């Protein structure tokens, strides 16, 4: 009997280890032989721990699974969810980047290959470097970390930069609240990231890669490090699949600084320095890690490369709309009924995702606002729920899609408090380089406290401060903190109005 239980951090956080112990104990007591395969998560977090049992070649789900359900599972009396891949939340997705996550044992290279793994890398090895870059350009892939810069153009810059040494750096410092796609990918299908980085190395002529992985993800660190060792032992890394092309990589652990998710700050940190932002130019593509040409791409961007080469650029580009091609793994979190990861082609509306796919709030109260794109993303009230999910569409609506995290708040949310938190977070995490960010964030907290105390004149000051931060900061931390603050102020002005009536 084959039983699948996720080893993803979200499943563990909800008791997956106790579930495994209970299943083993129950099977032992009954003298049954069971094989437990630890997978990534399917991304339906409200069902975790989600146990799957293969029945007639189809995996049936049971979840959320309590340790006390083990006896009923073996009795056949436990009510299940039916075939996991027919659960509407899953069935409605277009899983390209996350095709294998939740299906395979993340550390079984043979399982990876049996599900399409390494096909893309083998194809890329047969192409010349310029053609590899061209394929990525044709796919329309844009940086999934937030900025949305075309990945192929970045690669082209590095490919044509003359240098004896180049690097591929994977930005796995996903620190945005409400996002966990990087973590889920690395814990559920780490070989995809390794394969994507190897293809990038071949494309630009880099022989060394680094994954800069945040320390807040101990489970992802463990899986990634083990996967790199397995890939090296199997000859995927080193002399890449015996092709005579060299690429190797290393996992480096961050140290709890949010700003290191910014690429230049990340490079400084990787070099062993304070994670202070660098001015651009020079672009990291020309002078990056240790001053060498460096591709810095997000986990999802790099992990999407293998499927582009496996199925072809045209297949990938056929998903999406406008200049937002392909799929995006949206992560719906916070006060959400059916939260998790939903990979879909660009184009669905925000409201459809929140209300229809995810069922609104967990509390059952009305949705008040959602924050899209992490702590630097704008709040969207329900009036803006017709905004289509795409880079340009969100930009046009005064927000950003960022890393595609969607955090839902019900009607008890305190918008002024959330605006204050955005400023407080910026003050805590500012690297200190730019004055508008370093000092402005502190003043922002104070100004919001004045507004809270009933000082109506402070609102103008807050708007002015936000303009200064937006225009005067080098990176997105200081530059985008005004997004959550101003979007809260514009859409919920009554919460920022002086409470004179109450005082009188």
């Amino acid at each position, binding site marked *: 009997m084959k039983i699948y239980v996720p080893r993803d*951090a*979200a499943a*563990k*956080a*909800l008791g997956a280890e106790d579930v495994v112990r209970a299943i083993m104990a129950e099977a032992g007591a009954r003298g049954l032989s069971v094989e437990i395969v630890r997978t990534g998560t399917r991304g339906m*977090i*409200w069902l*975790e721990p989600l146990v799957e049992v293969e029945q007639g070649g189809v995996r049936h789900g049971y979840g959320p699974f309590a340790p006390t359900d083990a006896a009923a599972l073996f009795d056949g009396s436990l009510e299940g969810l039916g075939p996991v891949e027919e659960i509407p939340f899953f069935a409605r997705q277009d899983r390209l980047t996350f095709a294998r996550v939740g299906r395979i044992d993340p550390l079984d290279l043979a399982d990876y290959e049996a599900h399409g793994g390494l096909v893309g890398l083998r194809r890329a090895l047969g192409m010349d470097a310029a053609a590899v870059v061209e394929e990525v350009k044709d796919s329309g892939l844009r940086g999934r970390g937030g900025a949305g810069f075309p990945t192929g153009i970045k690669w082209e810059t590095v490919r044509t930069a003359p240098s004896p040494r180049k690097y591929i750096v994977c930005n796995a410092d*996903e*620190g*945005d*609240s*409400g*996002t*966990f796609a990087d*973590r*889920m990918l690395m814990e559920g299908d780490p070989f995809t990231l390794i394969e994507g980085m190897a293809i990038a190395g071949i494309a630009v002529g880099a022989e*060394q890669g680094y994954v800069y992985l945040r*320390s*807040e*993800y*101990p*489970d*992802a660190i463990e899986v990634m490090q083990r996967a790199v060792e397995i890939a090296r032992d199997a000859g995927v890394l080193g002399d890449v699949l015996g092709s005579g092309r060299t690429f190797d990589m290393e996992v*480096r*652990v*961050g*140290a*709890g*600084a*949010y700003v290191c998710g910014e690429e230049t700050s990340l490079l400084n940190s*990787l*070099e*062993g*320095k*304070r*994670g*202070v932002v660098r001015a651009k130019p020079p672009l990291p593509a020309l002078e990056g*890690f*240790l001053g060498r040409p460096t591709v810095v791409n997000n986990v999802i961007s790099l992990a999407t490369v293998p499927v582009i080469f496996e199925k072809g650029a045209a297949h990938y580009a056929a998903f999406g709309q406008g200049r937002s091609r392909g799929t995006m793994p949206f*992560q*719906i*979190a*916070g*006060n959400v009924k059916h*939260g*998790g990861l939903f990979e879909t082609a660009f184009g669905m509306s925000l409201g459809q995702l929140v209300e229809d796919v995810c069922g609104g709030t*967990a509390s059952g109260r009305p949705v008040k606002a959602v924050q899209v794109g992490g*702590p630097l993303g704008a709040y969207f009230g329900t009036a803006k729920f017709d905004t289509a999910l795409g880079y340009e569409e969100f930009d046009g609506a005064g927000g950003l899609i960022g890393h595609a*995290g969607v*955090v*839902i*708040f*019900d009607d008890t*949310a305190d918008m002024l408090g*959330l605006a204050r*938190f955005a400023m407080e*977070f910026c003050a805590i*995490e500012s*690297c200190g380089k730019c004055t508008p960010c370093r000092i402005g964030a502190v003043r922002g907290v104070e100004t919001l406290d004045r507004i809270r105390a009933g000082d109506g004149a402070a609102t103008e000051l807050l708007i002015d401060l936000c303009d200064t931060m937006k225009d005067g900061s080098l990176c997105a931390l200081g530059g985008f903190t005004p997004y959550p603050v101003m979007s809260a102020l514009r859409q919920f002005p009554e919460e920022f109005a002086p409470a004179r009536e109450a005082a009188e």
Partner: protein
Amino acid sequence: MPASQTLPPDTHADPDLGEVEAILALHSGREGPLLPMLHDLQEAFGHVPAVAHAPICAALNITRAELHGVISFYHDFRNAPTGRHVVKICRSEACQAVGAEALSGRVLGMLGVGWGETTPDGRVTVEPVYCLGLCACGPAAMVDGAVRGRVRAEALVAEVAP
């Protein structure tokens, strides 16, 4: 309660210069070795001991000011050991949407400490963390490196201070 009888043993050894040198040697020849060195020192000693500063500076040809700059920049690195248990509670927006502020207020109150502080008996340190990637099953926390979702204050405190 006589705390000394129930505390788990301190597994972190006293800083030993030979051991420091051995750890630093593991990283010689790597590109950008400082963060890996600091992580390994902290893993071995529970903090980055002052006795390690001079050897690090010598190994990497950096000044004490540069080293101090790096250690003090990152939230993870500590100059002193923590309590026996470290509890990290997420303060980010997704967890706030499901009551993280009430949770942390209650945990801090039950333990009688503020953020970053250790209980007087040396048992528990409570720190804020900004996102553990458990945003769809918050409020989230971490106890000695192990993740916890949909956390309740009583259960969290019971785990570290029974």
